């Protein structure tokens, strides 16, 4: 059952809590890498040095309160209030800011994934700036256990525009199982070229309206051969490729999409078309 409050967090903070999965789906976390261990050790040391000051101080407040009570002769109720106030003051020493450290950009190849989930992890206290979303994606042809995730920032004034079905360009952190570094500039034709396995850099990008979606044959794992038919100025364009069912909402009939057209490399005078997914 839903545990109220457990997934609500303070504004601007990461709202992830310890994952609990049903027994048939064990967590797929992978071990912590050196970066995570170093970061955790830094936090541990910082808190330890604070506690080394705050705990003795807190202990000292008790005899201090007793001495003050005996010497001054004030009512003991006030002494208790003062003691508790002192404990609060000393307790503030333990407050350390936990800024998530930014991993450096890895030197791995640019890859793409299809967005299947967008988890908004901050939506409060933006002060007109940006919020953060965790974008969950699947690389083309992947199996269900090969999810990747990375963070993207978005304008608090516009809201998060990232939707399932969009392409996400990313680079893998070699030591992390799911976490990836998201590419700051997401160029549609470059990403589509990686997704398609051939270059689309020189294609023309045109507007079209989706007419229909057909499923033609048997799937390859979770990936189904889908034909999207779109109309560009009276010309019908079809694009058949393997897609996840999660991608299809962007091809609702009547919706405007972008299509790419480029010269056919094998048959001069003809063009090849593709329905272009948006990028995250």
């Amino acid at each position, binding site marked *: 059952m839903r545990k109220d409050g457990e997934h609500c967090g303070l504004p601007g903070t990461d709202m992830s809590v310890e994952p609990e999965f049903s027994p048939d789906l064990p967590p797929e976390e992978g071990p912590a890498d050196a970066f995570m261990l170093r970061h955790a050790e830094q936090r541990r040391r910082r808190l330890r040095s604070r506690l080394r000051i705050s705990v003795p101080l807190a202990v000292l407040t008790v005899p201090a309160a007793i001495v003050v009570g005996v010497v001054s002769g004030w009512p003991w109720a006030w002494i208790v209030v003062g003691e508790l106030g002192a404990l609060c003051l000393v307790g503030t020493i333990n407050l350390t800011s936990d800024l998530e450290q930014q991993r450096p950009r890895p030197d791995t190849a640019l890859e793409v994934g299809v967005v299947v989930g967008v988890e908004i992890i901050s939506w409060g206290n*933006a002060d007109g700036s940006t919020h953060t979303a965790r974008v969950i994606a699947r690389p083309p042809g992947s199996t269900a256990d090969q999810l990747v995730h990375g963070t993207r920032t978005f304008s608090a004034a516009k809201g998060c525009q990232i939707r399932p079905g969009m392409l996400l360009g990313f680079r893998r952190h070699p030591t992390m199982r799911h976490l990836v570094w998201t590419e700051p500039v997401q160029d549609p034709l470059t990403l589509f070229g990686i997704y398609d396995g051939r270059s689309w850099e020189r294609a023309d990008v045109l507007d079209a309206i989706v007419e229909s979606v057909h499923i033609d044959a048997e799937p390859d794992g979770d990936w189904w051969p889908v034909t999207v038919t779109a109309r560009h100025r009276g010309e019908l364009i079809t694009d058949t490729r393997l897609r996840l069912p999660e991608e299809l909402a962007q091809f609702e009939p009547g919706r405007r999409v972008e299509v790419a057209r480029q010269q056919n490399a094998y048959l001069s005078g003809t063009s090849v078309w593709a329905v272009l997914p948006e990028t995250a």
Partner: protein
Amino acid sequence: MGIGDIILTVILTLTFAITALILWGEAVSTWTDLQEPPRQHDPRWYFTLRRWSWETLPEPVSDWLGAGPSPERRKPRVPVDVSEVLALLDGDVTDGDSGSISARLRVRLPDGEPTTLKLCVNDSVNARAGTFLPVRPVDPGMTDVRGNTWNTAWELATDEIGSILLDHRRSLGLIDDDTHRALYSQLPAGPDAALVGAIAPTGRVRHGHVEVDLDVTIDERSQTIRGFLRPEDIATARHTGVVQVSRDEEGRRALWPTWY
């Protein structure tokens, strides 16, 4: 000590005691957590959150969008209609009392006009683009405390919200008459969890939803259930391995909607 002093002492004692407990409790729990080695984040955690939201009865709006106006106010008589959330914006002031966040919801009203509602948001799983939000106009010429001319249907209970959202889903063609009847009759009972195998798209796409055939196993029987789901709920089914289904008197199964 006078009565005023006693009251002041009690208030200060309680305030300081609670604050000290929170501060020191936080320090202890952080310290304990840091003794364990850190773990990588599993992205499926997000789909587990969505699964929790799916396996409940339809929540009242006030559960995820703040409390609405104070309860003693008379209940509005204007009929409720369903708008669609376009974006969750800003959120620049924290409502310190409830822990929820003041934000602006950009919504498309039933007549197609966009408007912005200032609301407290508790839960971003529901408050996002595409969400169906039951609303009604504030009395003509009036605004509510926050200056909104439309308000959420904050006072409606689970079964009323469920029935409004079922009607809305039927009007959009996301469920047919038979499914509507079956789900309506099963509203008080809630769904059963079914294990899901293959997820096959049919090619139909409507209002941000994709029609899929789900191979499910429930009570050790396998069957195929067809229904419209949002892309993220297809991913939820896939990555949690579970979908929610209802069962009517004759034992027929229907896909439990994700309500909002």
